[in-house]
């Protein structure tokens, strides 16, 4: 490993830093512009959720390799209030903005793999991966 870099999310401007980090890594791995934009949008949404709901946390970006495949992994982690009903927030049309942002279901669609671990009181960990095709 050792392929991981992280950005702390403390204020709104850190969202941009996280995007920048994600874009750099995506470029290095050879993702095309459309996929770069998808990855950065996913990072934005996750970072914004941390900023809005947990107050603070971090976004880590990791290059991963599996057999011959290369990919980019986003790890969003915070120690905020956690999510009570994960099934509900993963439902389309649930986001509080009424679908103006991608929201968590959007992140799941933008990426290839998505995993969420969250419970009230113990914070939220979200891992999302996109493979280079």
């Amino acid at each position, binding site marked *: 490993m050792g392929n991981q870099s992280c950005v702390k999310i403390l204020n709104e401007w850190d969202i941009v830093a996280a995007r920048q980090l994600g874009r750099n890594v995506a470029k290095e791995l050879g993702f*095309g*512009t*459309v996929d770069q*934009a998808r990855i950065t*949008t996913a990072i934005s949404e996750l970072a914004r959720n941390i900023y809005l709901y947990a107050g603070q946390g971090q976004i880590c970006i990791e290059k991963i390799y599996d057999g011959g495949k290369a990919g980019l992994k986003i790890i969003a982690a915070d120690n905020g209030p956690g999510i009570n009903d994960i099934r509900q927030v993963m439902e*389309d049309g649930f986001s509080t903005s009424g679908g*103006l942002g*991608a929201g968590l279901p*959007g992140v799941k669609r933008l990426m290839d793999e998505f995993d969420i671990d969250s419970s009230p009181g113990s914070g939220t960990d979200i891992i999302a991966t996109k493979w280079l095709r």
Partner: protein
Amino acid sequence: MDFREKMEQEYREILINYLKNQSEQSLYQGQLFSRHTLEQKISPEEIVSLHKSLLLELYPEVPESVLHSFDILLEVMMGYGVAYREHQSLRNKQMELRTEMEIAANVQQTLLGTSIPDVEGLDIGALSVPAKHMNGDYFHFVVDENNCINVAIADVIGKGIPAALCMSMIKYAMDSLPENRNAPNLVLESLNRVVEQNVDPSMFITMFYGMYNPENHTIYYSSAGHEPGFFFQKETEEFSELEARGLLLGIDKKTKYLQFEKEVLPGDMIILMSDGVTECRTEEGFLEKEELIGYIRKYIHLSAQEIVNNIYKDLERLQHFQLRDDFTLIIIRRNV
């Protein structure tokens, strides 16, 4: 050639043509192109990216700034792309819901099904049509052991699925009434207790219950806040309201109901309905009682079922084929 290559080639041709001649024809090709890409669920950001790369390919000398500008466009389009995908998934879900609703409506029809009895000396017509999929109106005929024809017509305050679910319960409560039916007021009192105990406190039901005795040609009836019916007297050719008062089912478990009776002479008619008939909204407001009577008179020479069917057709047209409420109409006529 896979779809992406085909798409690129097609877009390239359209673009080249348009840059050459700016014709409406090429614009039309562009519109058709979007049909293909939508069909293949291509997101808008992909089109932006394709446009940018084709521009660079066709005009290698295109200014950097123009190319960069597409990065912003692509980023803005991302949001639309996500919304587009959400739309697709919601569409699929809506389709599933629709199918489920249709099945539920069929199940309800089977559950609530009642047949119009064929009784010598009586001509009966009945029709109930839901405004949406599920019906919150209900009617029910039973010929009891004494050959009395029992008729119930009910309406749940509320529409759609909750109302329909509630109605299924009423149906079972009615089925479990004793074989030889009690007097209408006692039937309502017993149903009232069921509704009061089992249904959501915000849900109320109106019901008219009538029992026609073919021996003495008298109808005994009670009403729980139901839309008043009409009585047509053949001798005078006059319509009058079937007077009956009573509290809705489900308000107070101790409610008592009054019973009324009316002798039915040859050619007389009893007309029962839900408020979906009288609250049928037209451009001029609600349908007036007089107007409804007018419709009945218009078809009075026909059989009871034909009268009911024709009135439904007329009212449906009057509302521009959009029912706002469930519609139920029953006509019972003593043959001449």
